[in-house]
């Protein structure tokens, strides 16, 4: 992974953008207010039938198997070939996709009944029914290498009432489940293909989608072609979508400008102005649901999942033991300046794990500490810390991540910190920080539609991704309550309380939120992009 901007290897952008018009996009601003469409569907331009759309992806997806898939770039391809029980719309609301309606949840919250659309066929012509949904969910729950087990951890059993109805029996009420079913856990695979391909399903995936898998060459392309079996095939315009893997951001952009590709995922912030200046191209923007921040090692000594302990001498610091020191570090940061200097002002400062666009956001969730180096120094003095306090931070060894690190380094110096940067190759840094061999780590999270996915795994005591050894019973209780409640307003309030506590303890110091930039040639109309930041081509085509 060679991120062009400091980010996790796998990004999940997210946005509140409606159906996007490429006719009007030239006028669209990248400063589109949250929740407002950056553009609308082409007014007087209609897409003609036929043609091959070439889409540049920033990275190589892993195996195209919804059960084992982990890369976010893979989701861009799944959008064309593997529909889900639920999807999201422009307002980040969850809506039925292969399901006929929203699920019915029992009063005790432990039984979730899902009605399915009828007459839907997989790309191989077999019927998509309750048995097929059960086969997929059971595989997600039981396959040794499944990456969906944690998504579906609340599910005890799946039963089929009739061909059009599936019932999920839960161990305990779990509100974020429907959001999980609007992602890879909700993708339904053809049982016939699962039987014939077994673990090689990912090499020839068969699901329900406007397009079906055709071919793949590693490090080059993934081709999908129009699926005549698709339930809405009449409205699919394109014959083919070819996803080309182009890792280098400059090369990607040049290929969009030369016309070799028509859609470009992940435009680098440095190319945004040039793209907007090009009259043949449109820019689509989306706000990420995730965040970038600094994870502080508070008590991870023996690895993720092991009980928190006191850090060994070489890592020991008041940064780990005294929340006031972490607060001082945060007071030293000028998030606006970081955004302007490192990212040309193209991203958004962030102070918490929940996007302001999220229906679960609240005032409490968006509280932000102001830049105040004098207060930082006073706090360090109060904590009895001798300044400058020497501390180290792992950053990715990419130019942008290094610049981000240097900007932070310069800022916290004024607050009384002597920050040493440790540029580390990404895969190595994950290994090192999982093992607890670090003091601070600049890393982010791609984000989930339900904020639970941005919070619980990272800061609850038993969180599968809690690599900082943070443990707080108040936070654990609040997270548990937010998972059991189904009322969005109640959940938003609980999330706000969690964020308030996190601001006191600061196991993660949130820095900024990415924007996802997608470049599209004006010869193409009807590309849709919603809150998950994924490009949808079901109704896209070349201008007629």
């Amino acid at each position, binding site marked *: 992974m060679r991120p062009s901007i400091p980010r996790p290897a796998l990004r999940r952008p997210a946005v509140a953008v409606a159906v996007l018009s490429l006719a009007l996009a030239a006028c669209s601003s990248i400063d589109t207010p949250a929740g407002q469409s950056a553009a609308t569907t082409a007014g007087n331009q209609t897409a003609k039938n036929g043609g091959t759309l070439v889409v540049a992806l920033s990275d190589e997806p892993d195996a195209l198997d919804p059960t084992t898939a982990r890369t976010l770039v893979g989701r861009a391809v799944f959008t064309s070939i593997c529909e889900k029980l639920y999807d999201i719309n422009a307002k980040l609301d969850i809506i039925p996709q292969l399901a006929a309606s929203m699920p019915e949840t029992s009063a005790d919250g432990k039984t979730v009944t899902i009605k399915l659309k009828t007459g839907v066929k997989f790309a191989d012509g077999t019927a998509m029914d309750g048995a097929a949904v059960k086969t997929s969910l059971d595989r997600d729950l039981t396959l040794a290498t499944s990456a969906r087990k944690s998504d579906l951890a609340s599910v005890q059993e799946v039963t089929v009432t009739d061909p059009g109805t599936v019932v999920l029996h839960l161990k305990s009420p779990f509100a974020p489940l429907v959001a999980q079913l609007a992602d890879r856990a909700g993708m339904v695979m053809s049982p016939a293909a699962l039987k014939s391909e077994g673990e090689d399903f990912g090499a020839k995936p068969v699901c329900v989608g406007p397009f079906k898998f055709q071919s793949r060459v590693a490090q080059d392309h993934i081709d999908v072609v129009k699926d005549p079996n698709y339930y809405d095939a009449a409205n699919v315009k394109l014959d083919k979508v070819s996803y080309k893997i182009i890792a280098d951001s400059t090369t990607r952009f040049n290929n969009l400008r030369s016309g070799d590709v028509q859609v470009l995922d992940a435009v680098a912030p440095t190319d945004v102005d040039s793209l907007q200046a090009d009259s043949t191209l449109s820019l689509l923007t989306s706000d990420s649901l995730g965040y970038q921040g600094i994870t502080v090692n508070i008590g991870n000594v023996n690895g993720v999942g092991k009980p928190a302990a006191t850090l060994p001498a070489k890592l020991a610091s008041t940064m780990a033991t005294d929340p006031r020191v972490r607060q001082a570090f945060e007071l030293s940061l000028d998030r606006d300046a970081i955004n302007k200097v490192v990212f040309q002002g193209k991203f958004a400062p962030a102070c918490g794990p929940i996007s302001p666009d999220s229906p679960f956001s609240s005032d409490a969730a968006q509280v932000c500490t102001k830049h105040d180096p004098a207060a930082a120094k006073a706090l360090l003095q109060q904590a009895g810390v001798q300044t400058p306090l020497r501390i180290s931070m792992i950053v990715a060894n990419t130019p942008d991540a290094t610049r981000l690190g240097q900007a932070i380094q310069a800022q916290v110096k004024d607050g009384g910190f002597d920050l040493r940067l440790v540029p580390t190759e990404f895969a190595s840094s994950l290994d090192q920080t999982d093992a607890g061999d670090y003091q601070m780590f600049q890393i982010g999270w791609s984000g989930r539609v339900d904020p639970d996915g941005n919070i619980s795994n990272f800061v609850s005591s038993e969180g*599968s991704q809690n690599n900082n050894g943070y443990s707080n019973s108040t936070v654990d209780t609040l997270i548990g309550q937010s998972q059991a409640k189904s009322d969005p307003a109640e959940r938003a309030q609980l999330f706000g309380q969690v964020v308030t506590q996190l601001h006191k303890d600061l196991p993660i110091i949130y820095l900024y939120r990415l924007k996802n930039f997608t470049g599209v040639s004006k010869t193409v109309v009807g590309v849709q992009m919603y809150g998950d930041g994924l490009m949808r081509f079901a109704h896209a085509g070349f201008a007629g």
Partner: protein
Amino acid sequence: MGRYLIPRLVESVVTFVLVTIVVFIGVRALPGDPARALAGEESDPQQLAAIRHSFGLDQPVPLQYLHYVGNALHGDLGRSSRTGLPVASSIGHALPVTLQLSVFAIAIATLIGVGAGVVAAVRRRGPAEWAANSVALLGLSVPSFWLGLMGVLVFAIAYPILPASGFVSVFANPVESFRHLLMPAIVLGSGLAAVVMRQTRSAMIEALGTDYVRTAKAKGLGGVQVVVGHALRNSLIVVTTIVGLQLGGLISGAVITEQIFVLPGFGKLIIDAVFTRDYPMIQGVVLVTATAYIGINLLVDLLYSVIDPRVRVGGAVL
């Protein structure tokens, strides 16, 4: 000939075995865990253990090696831990791309390098030599990524006469293949052309001063015959060595060129494999590259004996 080649064959086999061991241990010595690289954002220890188990990474390294070699001997190089696709088929797709690019680049480099080298040697201390030296210096000095990006900006964006990226096999459509490979081949071959030019010039200057060239001239042979038939032929042994060594280097050295022009060759394959700790893919690519190096070295040894019969030890006849 046999006495000349058999020891080299044995050396090659031993080298090959050593390479596989070094690579196998080397990739495992890299910091970073392939399972963690594959898991990406997610660090659930149980899932990481399941991934390690599925790729046999929880077995002792010697056992993993034997297992790998056993499978490799049956033509099974395993599956990519990243894409799940068979390594052999990915290499099968990538190898022709890099080979066609390398051959094209070498052809261009040799043509330019030898031509400029001969001109510089024959027309010494004149504008021709100065021009050839300047081109060589530029070829060596300009980084290929800059040259490649400039090429794309000029010939694909400002004046769209060539595609910015992509690959078409020469066997599928020779004209399109030429259009797609021209820029990458010039970029990849520019450094080599400079080296070939310098070497050709030195060798030619030396050859032109020898007794046999003077004798040839005295016998009344024409300038072209002397330069091409006598001096150049004897200079080619140096050029062949350089080109031979460079071909092996090009197969893996095309990394940057392939990234710039989005050519799905070895370079792109190995870059991603290293970043994602895709052990089976790294091993497969290195195995094939090592084979190419060893094979090309053998071929160069063989060509020596064709070009210069004095190389044949013991006077063995071909």
